[in-house]
């Protein structure tokens, strides 16, 4: 049952920050409320003051700078808005598709990207796929603004580096390097994902339509895994194993073979996920699944012209 609280509706980030400073531990940022209100109803969290940041103009905007290729997402942008943003659809199609697969339509309509990252619930899609980009986040507090890599925001389950009086304001996502394509695959049958694997890859020579890609060599690759463990991570060891190999060598499946490099990368990715036993399944199973999904995501990434994503259980 939701206990009474006072709702504050600031119209600037500065006001929000000072309200948070004034009420200290009694106050919390309230955005879509899909996590916060649920936890408060369950009596897991108690706050006497909620600071609604949806009333702050500008935080719900998406901007794309053609020149720098930088995407700027306001913290209060909803999953639905991301899914349908024309700029994201044309320049970051993988993000648009992945956002269309977050949660269910009701949560997407209300839940925000900022809320997702700040709640730091381990079973999160954006937490993983945004690591494929060198994503930065902008944070504002009483002392001003700071910008840090996304990887530094999340410390662990339900834990971020934000101070009580800091607000996440913006997420900055740089475009993939020229020629890189990506795929994000998630798996699970519960409401939240059991695991997610993102791969982005650039191969050379960049093949043209219809031409066989098998002989191409991996010149840049990123691997991110999430949801299975305490937090999403990039897996540099797996990336190194894939670098410099030909696609044929890494994906011999069509010839019935196995790639020792890919298998080893899968194993390392599974390990790096630090998969936990929970209601979604055993850590052992998730570790195995991350390996399976690394192969599938890699195959999907090299085979698409545009970065893309698949839906659960597909």
């Amino acid at each position, binding site marked *: 049952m939701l206990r009474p609280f006072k709702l504050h509706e600031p119209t600037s980030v500065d006001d929000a920050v000072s309200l948070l400073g004034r009420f200290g531990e009694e106050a919390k940022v309230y955005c879509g409320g899909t996590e916060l209100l649920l936890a408060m109803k369950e009596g897991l969290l108690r706050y006497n003051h909620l600071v609604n940041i949806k009333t702050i103009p500008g935080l719900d905007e998406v901007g794309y700078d053609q020149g720098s290729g930088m995407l700027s997402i306001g913290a209060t942008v909803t999953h639905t808005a991301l899914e349908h943003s024309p700029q994201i659809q044309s320049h970051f199609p993988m993000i648009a598709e992945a956002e269309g697969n977050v949660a269910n339509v009701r949560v997407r309509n209300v839940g925000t990207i900022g809320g997702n990252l700040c709640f730091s619930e381990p079973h999160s899609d954006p937490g993983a796929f945004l690591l494929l980009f060198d994503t930065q986040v902008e944070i504002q507090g009483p002392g001003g603004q700071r910008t840090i890599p996304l990887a530094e925001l999340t410390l662990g389950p339900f834990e971020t580096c934000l101070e009580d009086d800091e607000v996440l304001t913006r997420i900055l996502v740089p475009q993939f390097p020229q020629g890189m394509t990506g795929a994000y695959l998630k798996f699970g049958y519960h409401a939240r994902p059991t695991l997610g694997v993102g791969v982005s890859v650039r191969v050379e020579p960049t093949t043209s339509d219809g031409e066989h890609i098998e002989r191409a060599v991996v010149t840049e690759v990123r691997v991110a895994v999430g949801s299975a463990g305490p937090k999403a991570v990039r897996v540099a060891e797996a990336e190194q194993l894939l670098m410099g190999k030909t696609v044929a060598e890494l994906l011999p499946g069509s010839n019935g073979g196995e790639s020792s490099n890919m298998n080893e990368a899968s194993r390392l990715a599974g390990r790096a996920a630090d998969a936990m036993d929970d209601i979604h*399944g055993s850590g052992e199973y998730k570790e195995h699944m991350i390996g399976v999904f690394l192969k599938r995501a890699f195959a999907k990434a090299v085979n698409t012209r545009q970065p893309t994503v698949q839906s659960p*259980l597909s």
Partner: protein
Amino acid sequence: MTTTVGKPVPRIDALDKVTGRAAYVGDLEIPGMVHGLILRSPWPHARVLSIDSTEAERLPGVLGVLTRDHLEGIDAYFGSVVRDRPIVAMDKVRYQGEPVAAVAARDLATAQEALELIRVEYEELPLVSEMEEALVPGSPALHETNLCAEQHYDWGDVEEGFAQSDRVFEDTFTFPMVYHYALEPHTSIGHYTNQGITVWSTAQHPFLVRSDLARMFGFSLHQVRIIVPYLGGGFGSKSYTKMEPLAVALSKVAGRPVRLALSVEEAFKTVRRHAARLTVKTGVKLDGTFVARECLIYLDTGAYADNGPLVAGRAGERIAGPYRWPSLKVSSSAVYTNSTPAGSFRSIGAPQAAWASESQVDIIAHDLGIDPLEIRIKNMVSRGEEVRRGQRPLEGDPATGLRLAAEAVGWDDEAAEESGRAVSSALVTGKGLGCNLSGVGSSPTSTALVRMHVDGTLTVLVGTTELGQGSRSAMAQVASEELTVPMDSVDVISSDTSIVPYDRSTGSSRSTTLMGLAVQDGAIEVKDQLLELAALHFESPVEELSIEEGQVLCRGESIGFGELIQEEFGGVAGELMGRGYVTPRSHGGRLAQSPVFWEVGISAAEVELDVETGAIRIPHYVSVADVGKAINPQQCEGQDEGAAMQGLGHTLFEEMLYEDGQLLNPNLIDYKVPTFAELPDKLETILIENGDGPGPFGSKGLGEGGIVAAGPAVANAIFRATGVRIKELPLTPERVWRALRRARGQD
């Protein structure tokens, strides 16, 4: 001439429901009503040393606190079979979430605050979480013994049967604890006064709740009134008495009507389906003839008996399947453990029984090299044959139904290919069958009243609870058909025990069959009265009269029903009443023998399996229901599809998980129920209509059959795709993956 029966006429509650106008218990505002909340035990098994509620009682806004110390003058125990469940905990608590105290306050926030002021001192007791432990001598006991009930079925000599068998198979299967997840959690508004009790409640069986409350609170039946508005789904979770005694006792201490609306989490801690362990030993001839079967069934009934003893009985009966057994020996027990009490759930005991029985039929078929469809048909009882000793012979024809299901999924094509096919490197497909037979209908105890008003329209009064199954529409169709009036001239009032006549229960697929008959009888009585009046009017013998479209016809002349009533009473006044009685002796005694009828559950599934992940997809699922006559075909299909999906839920992912006696997943984020995303690509229902049911127009009930054989159909398909047999449900991707890995010898 048919007006409405057999047609997919729109439900009479459709508009109310899709516009949100339909009122459920939770929508009602009773004058003076206050709000109740329950304090629940954090421990699965503990002695309650002391409860101090003085501070809570003193909190402004609190009208009353209920604990074991406030039950004076109340018989605090209830239970449909064994009266072992107290309104609130007495000497000890037996499961996590058991009600220990309750508060009534002017608003929920105050009630919540008051709950936190109640001090309860517990002394933890050793926990019994598994049935195996529960039955070990000397293990901690929940009640006097942990064996709640034991049922036996015996005929023929199984030992001799096994000796005569060419092959004997023995397998053990387990079935998970699952929750009904009706959309609406249990909600009751209790109003106690010295003159009697009124309760608005989510009750499937309001008349049985009435008798319980009358006994517990010391009233006679006319002083207890149970009102059931629309119900947001039951599936057995709202059968018998659940939260009503607590709501009434709380109202008694508060002196006000008290509303008790459970959360989803609390509903998970009110009732569930029995987990089961079933061992089946079957002796067969090499040609596939079944010779003998012996079964040992254990059902986890949780902390209180609820309907467990009956569920154990039904599981024991239903594990024989739709087959001929020269000898059969079954022992079926309900066992207490420290968990949410288990009770009725859509086709009680049957999904558990069919899971074991039908999985083993495929094991046998494979071993003997016989087609799973053929071995079933070979052993299946046919029309007119005795199904269980001493019970009603079979009125239907399950073999035809099974053949239809098999045909619909293209069984023969697959038989030609022998087994599973690889679709791509990771995907394989296979097809599987499952079927079962359940004696249903409970007892033939239903009454109805059909009132014809002076304008010729009808009000039909029934005690059937409209819980989404469409009973109001089906009853209206029966009355409309019998009296040749249009559907929109019929209203059906259901479930106010002081207004509508008696009905035993809404469950066991019985309402259209038995209440339908009562309504039909009531309508016929009205018709007879109309004909009598018309005979006077036309000065003609009744034999020369007929009715059509709300008129009585006589030699080319006609008169409206309403005009006849007006003629009798004078002026625009009066009404006619028709009664319907369904009893063991009514209808020439043809309903007396048990069961009222046999309900088949027949499923065929085509399954696609990802061998790398263990994930299952269902491209095609077929369910067959034998309905005798579909009063409303669209609603029959809806019932059957719903049952099939609910069956796929416990087949693929549903399971209540306990750790140290604590329920880990009492919410929809962690307890997965099927959603639209899990619908098979093609979900088909085939209705068999042979007019051989005991209900009106040859109908018989449905709604339970579709859930029964989902598990074995899917697991049998997995076996045919991979050669791997899984004997535990649910078939989560991880469980399937592990089974495949074990089969490959990698584990």
